């Protein structure tokens, strides 16, 4: 088990030997409307050669967390507390120049929408070659050749010619492949993929996922895979962390989380996911209510306004007391372990079919 789950909020020694280790991370932005607590006490680890899936709704803090890892937040508006260790090196306090050396080199990122994530003004080849020139001090010529080679590797036909194209001349899948080529050109240790397949259609999605898995085998990188799609995560991740309102609410191995989920929110996620084998007549059950405002998160358990199992906890614990996330395989919910098991087996599972 790679996810060395520790209790949230309680500082614990960084996971030894972890590639990436995040401890009690708090990220908040100042906005015109007030302070947004995008990430609120988050800890997790990623190992080499393994994939951590982060799941959650829009605005649950998944992307913010990973942008913060790369230091891509705007320091003017953002406050960061906690530790981010990459190979044991503290990143939150690192100088900009050091971060620049890491970015695209040791840590690379793949973004959700490859159309907006690639500059429309420069050729694909140039954009792929840039980090290679920067980090390896390679000449234009060498970097270009390397870019062409990478394009070939990610499965772009006729890479020599296509490198001269602009992103808008690529199809969506090809653009995402180009993004991947760009991310991998410097053999990064850690790859952060932020919903890399969301914007693609299903067949292309599968190809890209396969490509990522293949490349992981080849390069041995650790991957943080962010998505809101449990189907994708089942395919990709070794471990899963479910996020809600800037916090981790459940974590475990992919098997554990998908087969015996413990948190009502995870149940909700599973419930609202369509399945090929489900009864055509059975309606999907969306989670009621809207995601919480991060400006003014609900007290106690942030999920309580939408939780249908609140009354089973008894008292007003859900409203007043914030449930903690225990280490390792755990979920942050006031329901007892038994309740969790029974509710899942008796009430949720049947509906999932």
């Amino acid at each position: 088990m790679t996810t060395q789950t520790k209790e949230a909020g309680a500082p614990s020694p960084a996971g030894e030997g972890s590639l990436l280790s995040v401890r009690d991370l708090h990220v908040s932005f100042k906005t015109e409307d007030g302070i947004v607590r995008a990430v609120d006490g988050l800890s997790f680890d990623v190992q080499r050669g393994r994939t951590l899936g982060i799941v959650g709704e829009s605005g649950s803090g998944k992307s913010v967390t990973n942008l913060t890892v790369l230091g891509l937040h705007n320091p003017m508006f953002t406050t960061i507390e906690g530790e981010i260790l990459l190979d044991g090196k503290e990143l939150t306090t690192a100088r900009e120049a050091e971060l620049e050396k890491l970015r695209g080199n040791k840590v690379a990122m793949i973004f959700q929408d490859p159309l907006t994530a690639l500059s429309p003004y420069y050729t694909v080849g140039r954009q792929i070659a840039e980090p290679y020139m920067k980090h390896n001090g390679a000449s234009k010529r060498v970097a270009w050749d390397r870019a062409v080679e990478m394009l070939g590797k990610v499965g772009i036909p006729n890479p020599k010619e296509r490198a001269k194209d602009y992103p808008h001349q690529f199809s969506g899948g090809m653009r995402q492949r180009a993004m991947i080529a760009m991310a991998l050109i410097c053999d990064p240790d850690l790859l952060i993929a932020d919903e890399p397949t969301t914007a693609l259609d299903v067949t292309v999605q599968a190809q890209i996922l396969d490509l990522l898995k293949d490349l992981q085998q080849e390069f041995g990188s650790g991957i943080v895979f962010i998505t809101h799609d449990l189907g994708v995560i089942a395919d990709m991740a070794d471990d899963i962390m479910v996020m809600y309102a800037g916090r981790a609410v459940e974590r475990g191995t992919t098997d554990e989380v998908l087969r015996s989920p413990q948190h009502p929110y995870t149940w909700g996620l599973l419930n609202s996911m369509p399945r090929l084998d489900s009864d055509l007549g059975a309606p999907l059950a969306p989670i009621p209510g809207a995601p919480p405002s991060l400006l003014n998160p609900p007290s106690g358990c942030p999920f309580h306004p939408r939780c249908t199992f609140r009354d089973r906890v008894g008292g007003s614990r859900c409203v007043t007391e914030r449930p903690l996330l225990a280490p390792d395989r755990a979920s942050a919910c006031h329901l007892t372990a038994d309740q969790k098991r029974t509710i899942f087996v008796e009430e949720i599972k049947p509906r999932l079919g």
Partner: protein
Amino acid sequence: MLRFLVRRSLGAVVILFLLSIVTFLLFFGMPRDPALLICGKTCNPQSLANIHHVLGLDKSIPEQYAIFLHNLFLGSNGFAQGPCPAPCFGYSYHTNDQVWATLMDRLPTTVSLTLGGAFFFLLIGLGTGLMAAWKRGTLIDKSATAGSMVLGSMQIYFLGPLALAVLVYQTHWFSKPAYNEFTANPITWFTGLIIPWLVLSTIFAAQYTRMARSSMIEQLQEEHVRTARAKGMSRRYVFFRYAWRGSLIPIVTIFGIDLGSLLGGAIITEYTFGLPGLGQLAVQSVFFSDLPLLLGVMLFSAAMILLFNIIVDAAYAFIDPRVRLS
């Protein structure tokens, strides 16, 4: 590209054609008779009729328009003042000069005013704007923003006389604005235009500062800029390569509009500083009910606006590879 140019030029010609009709009708709606202006002191109905005949104003409006078009494309030898090769707008009622020659004669003044002004307002405006975007949130940024807001709210008819009073007549730091030909003496050309340039660029630069700043900041929030940062490119590199390239489009657009309308005659600026450019000519043509001149200036100004529209659109293709001209 060629198809684009041909198509757009044809469109422009159609617009100019329509504009000439509108101008023609507008002129005949004016409540004054140009013949009265020419008629002079010894004016009487006979001489008025005589002038009407000489100017061709006794013909019907469509007939006059047909003659105008004919002369414009084919030229004419029918003028008492002399031959008039195409493009022939005829001879000014008021000065009896050939209109095309007058336009060409006034053009260097306007071009000097515009290009000089543009040089300064681009330099100052973009420089300040980029600086403000780079130093976003700092005192520099805030004072640049506030300064450009106040300066940009000033008008030439306020700043111009003010600058004249202070810089020329009180302190004698600068000489009185005038147009001297560049080819005759580049130094007097420069000193004669420096105040109009500065006034023009103060007001325009403010606009460019605000635009450069906001579009740079907007661009810096673009995802592809974030990608570039994520792959380790330095802030400076991203700023000047990625964000700047994206900011060019709005800047080039506004610059094209400004240049086109300034080249068509900066009326208030030329009026304020007494510079003999197209703008001044335009005002004259209206005040003196000078139809050939009015048509000439109107069409020339519109042609400038249209020309720069086309140039701007063509420039998009160079800036943004997604744009394809057709």
